[in-house]
């Protein structure tokens, strides 16, 4: 395949830069488990403290009266090469904190939406969000023990997905399985880019 237009100047010294992929889905679906399965370290947790009116404060007056919310994000790291580091971010609570999602999805290569067939509707908000933003995503059905097995096309129909969106089975605890999901996502994202480029030409 001819991809053309590489933006890195030839012969430039490799400078390490970072890229990210998001792991989304409902509460308890296994986002942090998946991050941990492929990350080179145990998942780390970072927090944003949000104040309801807290922009542009330069002193402490009134801080004690503000309502604050802490948004936690679990994430992991995979060193791809000397010049490339991949971060995986589990997205925080789907019903709130959309502006944290906006920050997270900015520049993300794509997203994995984890689904549990016992609570399929839990991943609707994530799917809606990525569809609306045009962020490439795949749906990975986490195979929980005891969950009734559905065929992938049944899941695809139930989620009302665009036929082009890959739906795969996975075991979020297994490194190989999580790797496969990420590779499927990246291949899908490349295909979408190719299609968009062709449409633009």
């Amino acid at each position, binding site marked *: 395949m001819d*991809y053309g*237009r*590489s*933006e*890195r100047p030839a012969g430039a010294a490799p*400078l*390490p*830069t*970072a*890229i*990210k992929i998001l792991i989304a889905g409902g509460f308890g679906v296994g986002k942090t488990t998946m991050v941990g399965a*492929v990350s080179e370290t145990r998942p*780390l*947790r*970072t*927090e*944003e*403290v949000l*104040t309801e009116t*807290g*922009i*542009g*404060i*330069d*002193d*402490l007056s009134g*801080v*004690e009266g*503000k309502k*604050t919310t*802490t948004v936690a*994000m679990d*994430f992991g*790291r*995979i060193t*791809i*090469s000397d010049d*490339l*580091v*991949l*971060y995986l*971010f589990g997205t925080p609570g789907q019903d709130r904190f959309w502006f944290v999602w906006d*920050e*997270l999805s*900015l*520049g*993300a*290569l794509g997203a994995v939406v984890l689904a549990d067939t016992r609570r399929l509707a839990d991943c609707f908000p994530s799917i809606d969000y990525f569809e609306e933003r045009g962020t490439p995503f795949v749906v990975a059905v986490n195979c929980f023990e005891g969950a009734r097995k559905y065929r992938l096309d049944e899941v695809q129909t139930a989620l009302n997905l665009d036929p082009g969106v890959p739906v795969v089975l996975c075991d979020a605890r297994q*490194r190989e399985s999580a*790797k496969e999901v*990420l*590779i499927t996502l*990246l*291949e899908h*994202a*490349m295909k979408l*880019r190719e299609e968009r480029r062709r449409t633009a030409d």
Partner: protein
Amino acid sequence: MTGQAESAEQEWVDDHAGPVVRPYAVTGGRARPVTGTFDLISLVTATRPDVGAESGLGPEHMAIVGLCQRMQSVAEIAAHLDLPVGTVRVLLGDLVARHLVQVREPRATPAGLPDDSVFEAVINGLRAL
């Protein structure tokens, strides 16, 4: 009214005050960095082995310089120091202004995603894991 002052003080020492008060104390009450925006995955490297005789820097600044002897993302710094990302951004602004750390912005920018070679590199990297 002394009663009111006391109750305010009690709020400050209460555990629930922690997540608010400590970050503000660490940054001297500042909510915004003096310079830079610092994406969660911006990569930070210290330019010196330690802070040295720089004045006006606190233990958290020193901790960041110590941590960033090996390259770290903003998210990792926040996680390791157990501070909110917003607080770490303020501290990083101070360090950048003093040329104590270098910051490398992520490969993808708001202007666009990286080129295909990056996708291919990640796919190959993952296969090799």
